[in-house]
């Protein structure tokens, strides 16, 4: 585990974790990915864009330490430094909580841009946890992104909403509106994947989903008991002891940072045989 902050200038990459549909694992993934990046030594901040329904703080386990929030900073009531909560487990990780009391209209494009600009000067990765839906909060979370992780369950409504969000990423964002800019690098993170149900034809396969969405795959997170346990105790799953889900998130994080990690689909209980059979069949 390397947690030593790097001395080189910050990368300043903005990654949005989005999905359209609610309950697919955006916040869980934002927490796991940001903790995974920080664990690799990258200076990382994770921002909650779900104004009015703050939850990232609970998943990160810092809910009792929130003083100022994202909106306080936008409105000039607090300095960014005062609103950032330093993670107690990883010194490379910070959390910027959202407001529990305002509404989404408090998010202004200029305010968000200013905050991201300040964060880019200090952090390697700025992970934006989008709210569900495609309204203001979600639009603001994705607008300034360099990369997008589209969290998708192998289930019809989730895949449909992901497709819609992919459309928005390629049209309603700063990179889309700036001529000559490289488009947002969007990748799918398939979560709640149940290999046993895929094997008996009850769940769409990874390839089925990718064929429909036609974007690269960042990773496959198996349905895992470790997720609820981690959320119960307020620890990102990658910091909550070894599990199939933690392993899958760590792999996804390595791919995000440019490492070429073989795509393995880890089952919660019996990897190995099934995995190999599947690997050949797909």
């Amino acid at each position, binding site marked *: 585990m390397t947690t030593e902050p790097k001395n080189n200038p910050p990368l300043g990459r903005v990654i949005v974790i989005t999905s359209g549909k609610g309950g697919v694992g955006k916040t869980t993934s934002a927490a796991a990915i940001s903790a995974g990046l920080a664990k690799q030594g990258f200076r990382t901040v994770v921002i909650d864009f779900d104004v009015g329904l703050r939850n990232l703080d609970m998943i990160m386990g810092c809910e009792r*330490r929130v003083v100022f*929030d994202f909106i306080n900073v936008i409105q000039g009531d607090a300095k960014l430094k005062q609103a950032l909560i330093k993670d107690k487990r990883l010194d490379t990780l910070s959390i910027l909580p959202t407001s529990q*009391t305002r509404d989404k209209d408090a998010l202004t494009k200029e305010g968000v841009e200013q905050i991201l600009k300040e964060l880019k000067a200090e952090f390697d990765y700025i992970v934006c946890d989008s709210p569900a839906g495609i309204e203001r909060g979600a639009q603001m979370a994705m607008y300034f992104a360099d990369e997008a992780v589209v969290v998708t369950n192998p289930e019809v409504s989730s895949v449909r909403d992901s497709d819609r969000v992919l459309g928005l990423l390629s049209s309603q964002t700063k990179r889309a509106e700036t001529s000559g800019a490289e488009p947002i690098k969007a990748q799918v993170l398939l979560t709640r994947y149940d290999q046993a149900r895929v094997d008996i034809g009850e769940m769409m396969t990874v390839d089925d989903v990718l064929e429909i969405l036609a974007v690269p795959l960042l990773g496959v997170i198996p349905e895992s008991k470790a997720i609820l346990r981690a*959320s119960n105790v307020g620890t990102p799953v990658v910091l909550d002891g070894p599990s199939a889900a933690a392993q899958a998130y760590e792999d996804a994080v390595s791919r995000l940072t440019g490492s070429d990690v073989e795509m393995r689909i880890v089952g919660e209980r019996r990897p190995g045989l099934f995995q190999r059979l599947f690997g050949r069949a797909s």
Partner: protein
Amino acid sequence: MNLFSFVRKQRPPQSAQTAKDRLQILLAHERSGGGAGKADYLPMLQRDIVAAIRKYVPIEEKDVDVRMERGEQMSSLEINIELPQAASPKAG
């Protein structure tokens, strides 16, 4: 101690209890104070603290660091004020 921990392991997994405890503490705080008003007094408090200290020492808003830890029995508010190096009371 070992025996005790063995007995404890027989009970349902502890993480569910942790989840419940965390929620109870958090929601108690959010419900009292009426959620809305409560969260908003901190920026004002900070402004007042800065104003009070500025009467004696030249400090910036950014020199004030407010931290909070909400607990079951009590919450603590920790305020750190960074005084400028040459901080000496005005005209003593």
